[in-house]
């Protein structure tokens, strides 16, 4: 075969392939314009009404309607050359389902043959013989686009394909836009919820601090009391030490007259007779050591309170649960001291988790406070333990108080649920604990026996693998 004929044949084959590619080009152009229509529209109805113009560039038709479908009726949303169509009609998606046998895009070559829908459409469009029906399904609505033509069998498989792909794109784009809007709305709600929780957390913290104030004051008062006492005592010792030192200086000063030096010696002798100087020296060391210890206790309590009362930040850091438990005990220790016996069985290694230290401290404090309040008898015990289970660290706080009614266990973490008397509890403490635990990808387990004990176990994902697990 001559080369030129081979080339002719190749050109023909390429033409065949080009025609198919052109179909995609037409479709792509439609998609582009459809996208513009969606992005420039505020409402779904507005979007669809622009489609007639867009569709006309891909498919030839004489008239069109866009319907919103309910089960048993439709509403016309947009129309083009369809003056006789009613605003609403008693034809719906149920009847369409039967008519289209489950298909989404159907080229109807003779409208009168279309069951149920055909006759009414023909009466509203008397001059229309053929139609292209395209069903559109979005997240929660169903629409029907009908393109009509005065020609017999104006639409074929290629029109079906264009309409189907275009509408499929439109539906998925609209769904994406709807999803985006929903996502933004949910983000906004989430942020609002976070702000409210933050505010509640702060309020709850302040409420806890209020309840703790007496205990904390007592805790501060003790060291401050003996600090004052020690300082007073040391002040007395210091005046004796000063007299001793002054007289020693006079005795040792050769420039002084004999009379002055003798009087100084006499005073020294009298001081030694009157005061037990050796004891004073020894006691001074103890006073200073005790005072330092008291000052450190005060500093620790103040630091814990500051850390606890500081407004929450977004700072996520490595938190040692054991250290956080100890810090909380420092704050609440005053409450416990005379009311219950505290037992600690903390894991020997630090239990590092990722989180917000003050929020974790808040959880421990709330549960410890509840435990304290649950103990009404005089043999109260609070047992705090920690450990590791698989990839989680846990802290358990168990009291031998009044326990929890079985019916209340499932409601413990509901906001505003409280069994305390009015004014005694906000009902938000455990709800906030639950929320904080969720934010830390953790969870709380509650075990209780009424009149016997309650055990709250808090699980946190470990920040890294533990070398030693219990």
């Amino acid at each position: 075969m001559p080369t030129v004929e081979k080339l002719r044949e190749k050109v023909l084959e390429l033409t065949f392939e080009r025609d198919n590619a052109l179909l995609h080009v037409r479709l792509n152009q439609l998609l582009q314009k459809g996208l513009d229509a969606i992005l420039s529209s505020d409402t779904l109805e507005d979007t669809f009404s622009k489609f007639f113009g867009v569709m006309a560039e891909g498919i030839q038709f004489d008239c069109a309607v866009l319907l919103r479908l309910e089960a048993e009726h439709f509403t016309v949303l947009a129309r083009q050359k369809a003056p006789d169509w009613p605003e609403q009609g008693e034809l719906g998606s149920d009847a369409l389902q039967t008519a289209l046998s489950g298909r989404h895009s159907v080229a109807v070559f003779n409208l009168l043959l279309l069951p149920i829908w055909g006759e009414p459409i023909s009466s509203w469009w008397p001059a229309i013989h053929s139609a292209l029906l395209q069903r559109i399904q979005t997240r929660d609505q169903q629409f029907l686009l009908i393109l009509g033509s005065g020609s017999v069998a104006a639409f074929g498989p290629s029109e079906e394909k264009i309409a189907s792909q275009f509408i499929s794109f439109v539906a998925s784009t609209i769904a994406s836009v709807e999803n985006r809007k929903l996502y933004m709305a949910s983000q906004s709600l989430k942020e609002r919820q976070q702000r409210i929780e933050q505010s509640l957390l702060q309020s709850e913290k302040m409420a806890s601090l209020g309840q703790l104030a007496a205990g904390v004051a007592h805790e501060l008062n003790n060291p401050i009391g003996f600090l004052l006492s020690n300082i007073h005592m040391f002040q007395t010792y210091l005046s004796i030490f000063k007299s001793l030192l002054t007289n020693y200086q006079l005795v040792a000063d050769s420039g002084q007259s004999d009379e002055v030096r003798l009087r100084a010696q006499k005073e020294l002798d009298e001081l030694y007779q009157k005061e037990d100087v050796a004891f004073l020296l020894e006691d001074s060391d103890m006073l200073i050591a005790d005072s330092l210890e008291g000052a450190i206790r005060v500093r620790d309590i103040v630091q814990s309170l500051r850390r606890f009362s500081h407004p929450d930040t977004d700072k996520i850091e490595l938190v040692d649960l054991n250290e956080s438990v100890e810090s909380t005990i420092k704050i609440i220790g005053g409450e416990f001291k005379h009311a219950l016996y505290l037992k600690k069985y903390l894991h020997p290694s630090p239990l590092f988790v990722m989180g917000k230290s003050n929020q974790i401290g808040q959880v421990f404090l709330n549960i410890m406070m509840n435990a304290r309040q649950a103990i009404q008898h005089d043999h109260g015990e609070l047992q705090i333990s920690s450990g590791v289970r698989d990839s989680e660290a846990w802290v358990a706080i168990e009291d031998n108080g009044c326990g929890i009614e079985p019916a209340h266990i499932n409601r413990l973490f509901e906001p505003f649920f409280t069994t305390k008397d009015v004014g005694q509890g906000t009902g938000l403490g455990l709800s906030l604990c639950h929320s904080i635990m969720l934010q830390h990808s953790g969870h709380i387990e509650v075990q209780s026996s009424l009149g016997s004990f309650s055990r709250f176990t808090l699980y946190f994902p470990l920040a890294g693998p533990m070398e030693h697990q219990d």
Partner: protein
Amino acid sequence: MFEIKTAQSNACTAEAIWQDLQQQLAGQQFQFGFVMGHHSRVPLLRELPMLSCAAHWIGGSSCLGVITEQGVFLQQDSLAVMMIRDDEGHYASASAVIENQDIAKATQQALTLALQKAGRPYQVPELVWCMQPPGTEEAVLRQIEKVLGKKVPVYGGSSADDDVSGLWVQYDGYAIHQQAVVIAVLYPSVAISHFFHSGYVPTQHKGIVTKAKGRLLQEIDDQPAVDVYSRWLNKKISDNYMQETTLTPLGSIIEQDQLDLPLYMLSLPVDFHDDGTIELFAEVEQGTQLCLMTSETPRLLSRTGTMCDCTRSILPQQRVSGGIIIFCGACLLSIKEQMGLVRDNVCTSLDGAPFLIAFTFGEQGYAVDHTNRHGNLMYATVLFGETDADS
């Protein structure tokens, strides 16, 4: 689920044919079946419970036999089926006997019934397949377009025998006919691709049809058609016309706007009359420009494979489940000894997917100019993809 399977038999009794088919199809149920075979075998179908295998059938006689991916079966004793299982598709066929030569009426009846049986009497099918006796192709196409419009691709061919002696038959799943139009409407759930072309190229010999009536070509450039044709061939046609003219048919030149290259719709001269007129196997219109076409055996052998390549190229991911190919019976008669090459080419092109090649006397298809046409010496390929175009 979409699946295509083929099965073949060259048994000589109905019972043995049924056993062969059942064995190869493993007793499976299908929605639709194409059946083509030698005119000596197709009539045996009426004795077989074909409807137990598929609810809808279309078929007829094929020149010499058939070819499938399983082999070349041209020993005048074979029959093959191509079965479609498509759980989400819709298929149906129907037939009507041509009475009083009213082809339009028979076509209308068969088409309407097929649409109703498919449960979609209102919907344009994805593809229409037709099988009719030779000489009725244009009228069938015209009537289908009158009902469904010009946008639906119509493929098919005329039932054939081995020597144009009139032994051809048509089959609709229920009965064997000699003068019936059988029409199938297809709404497959997978993408389809189709291509209709020939294996011929034009020569420099051209003329205008100045007198013609239907399939009778009377004058070219105001001269007797036989004289002009003989002059173009530079020889006098003797007997056994079809063998002599198969490699030198006439082509109606169809100018198309979208491409500078014209299309050629071929007509095979089958009879030369003493009055200088030529009987063709396809209609020609007065005013049409005619061209002497030519081809060579290697080209006729390779063309089906290259057409399958082209058709497959536009399927989604170029994945093909199977296909049906119509090959001109006249072409077959001139190259029958080498048809193994055609099978090999198609097998390679379709990556071993199942296919059925049938040989007809008059082919119908959707030409590159987006028009349903009838021609002689044409090839038609319809391939089914594995997925829908949207997926």
